[in-house]
């Protein structure tokens, strides 16, 4: 095994060992958030890297979180069953929205607008059904006493850290799996020229639908995980347009075309949000969104490959020279 091949395993081992050595609760909390959001951003980038820019992922995340919590509170369904149901629900929602788009060749800006509407609709539904979901005040899954595997509720941060780490690693593995598949060639081709891809024998609608469903399933899992960890969800934190925009921002800043790009994006966005919260307190509510917006424009113009993508490019050219 070369040094390059063993690096991910060493890094992985270090990340697993970390909470047994260092257990400052606030820092672990930030790390858990970073891991969960990294997974959500990775899910978004599965589509985004092929030019399928979705602003509907807030919707999938909301479905993941709310369906899991509602099934638990109202029907007593364990999250172990509720989460798969929520993921399937998000996948079905994704198919309902995406299939007509792909079938009738709604691409580019028009696709973005359709998905934007999806985010808005999910947010409205959560707010409108306030008798069940608590509306804009938010929603809390019923607590069990202490840590319960069945309820997927744990008091200690170490367990949550390990769960989030595992899911994040699975997300990266899925990213790599797609990256190595022939479907990646097909999707790259589709993103350039749909007719030419079809002339090469690619079933364009099916390929796009596949990656969309994978992405929606993963995003819903991220939402459910966030809900189980925070034990509080509100339409603003797990659904809606601002969450969708935050995903786009983080991925573009981190790097859209590299596996760890979304993770770098999560580190930056969460540290930025926490920094503003600690530095300015309630005076800075909403500032992070403002900063995101400005930075997004700056990045798209000056650093379209994102921070990690650009660094890796530099390293590659430096090695060649």
């Amino acid at each position, binding site marked *: 095994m070369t040094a390059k091949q063993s690096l991910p395993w060493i890094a992985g081992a270090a990340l697993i060992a970390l909470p047994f050595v260092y257990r400052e609760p606030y820092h672990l909390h930030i790390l858990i958030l970073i891991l969960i959001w990294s997974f959500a951003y990775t899910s978004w980038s599965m589509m985004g890297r092929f030019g399928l820019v979705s602003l509907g992922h807030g919707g999938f995340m909301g479905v993941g979180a709310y369906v899991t919590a509602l099934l638990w509170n109202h029907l007593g369904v364990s999250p172990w069953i509720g989460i798969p149901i929520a993921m399937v629900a998000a996948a079905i929602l994704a198919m309902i929205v995406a299939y007509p788009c792909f079938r009738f060749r709604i691409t580019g800006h028009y696709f973005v607008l359709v998905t934007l509407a999806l985010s808005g609709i999910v947010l409205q539904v959560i707010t409108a059904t306030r008798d069940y979901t608590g509306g804009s005040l938010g929603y809390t899954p019923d607590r069990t006493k202490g840590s319960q595997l069945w309820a997927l509720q744990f008091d200690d941060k170490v367990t949550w850290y390990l769960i989030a780490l595992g899911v994040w690693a699975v997300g990266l593995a899925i990213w790599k799996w797609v990256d190595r598949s022939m479907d990646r060639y097909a999707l790259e081709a589709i993103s350039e020229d749909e007719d030419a891809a079809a002339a090469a*024998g690619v079933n364009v609608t099916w390929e796009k639908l596949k990656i969309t469903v994978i992405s929606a399933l993963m995003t819903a899992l991220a939402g459910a995980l966030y809900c189980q960890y925070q034990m509080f969800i509100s339409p603003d934190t797990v659904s809606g347009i601002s969450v969708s925009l935050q995903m786009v921002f983080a991925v573009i800043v981190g790097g859209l075309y590299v596996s760890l790009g979304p993770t770098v994006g999560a580190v930056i966005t969460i540290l930025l949000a926490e920094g503003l919260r600690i530095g300015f307190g309630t005076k800075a509510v909403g500032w992070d969104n403002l900063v995101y917006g400005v930075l997004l424009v700056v990045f798209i113009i000056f650093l379209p490959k994102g921070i990690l993508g650009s660094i890796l490019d530099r390293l590659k050219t430096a090695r060649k020279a």
Partner: protein
Amino acid sequence: MLVVEGLVKRFGGFTAVNQVSFRVEQGEILGLIGPNGSGKSTIFNMLSGTFAPSAGSMQFDGTEISGLAPHRIINRGIGRTFQIPRPFHRLTMFENVALAGYFGQGKHSRIKAEEAAERALGMVGLTTDRHALVDGLGAAGLKKLELAKALATGPKLLLADESLGGLDENEMDQAADMLRKIRDELGITIIWVEHIMGVLMRVVDRVMVLDHGEKISEGLPSQVSSDPRVVEVYLGTDAVATQAAAAEARR
């Protein structure tokens, strides 16, 4: 092998292809010529599934293919090239062709796809650097790559939209010889679309001429090139008169 009957394509009130019928026999090269806008590419787009015909039937190996999605038609064995090459810039040359081999053959086997890509690149003579990007290729190279992509899909019938514009005389001859080699060595039946008659006439077995969406002539190259209707379309009525006068003078 291919039987087309009463093919019609309308775009709104405009009829791009009007009641065109023709047959293609196994192993032949059929030339399809006509001026710009005569409906050649529209016929190709219907045969390859990009457009559904407004009316008429297209039977390939005895089964109806009109209205099938492009990838299904390709999987049945009809490959195509585009008039202006449409390579994928984000993939390497080899990946471009391997993609067509993987999805076009309908077998979804990576090994078979790479073998097909290797063969197709060898056939068209693009064996340089398989990891090279598409951007380094010139006009002739891009046409070769386009052809390799179509060949990698394992076609029984190749729709070659080989407009030779942009190539010099030498390259035109090479392109024509390439199509003949594909037919002779791989046994692939070919329909070759072109709007100038020159090189095409030397290679094809039969020619069909279109004008304003209608078939105006069909037959051996020698017959077609002396057909007054074809001469009129290509050279104008004056030319017909001049030709007649020249014949008169020779007598």
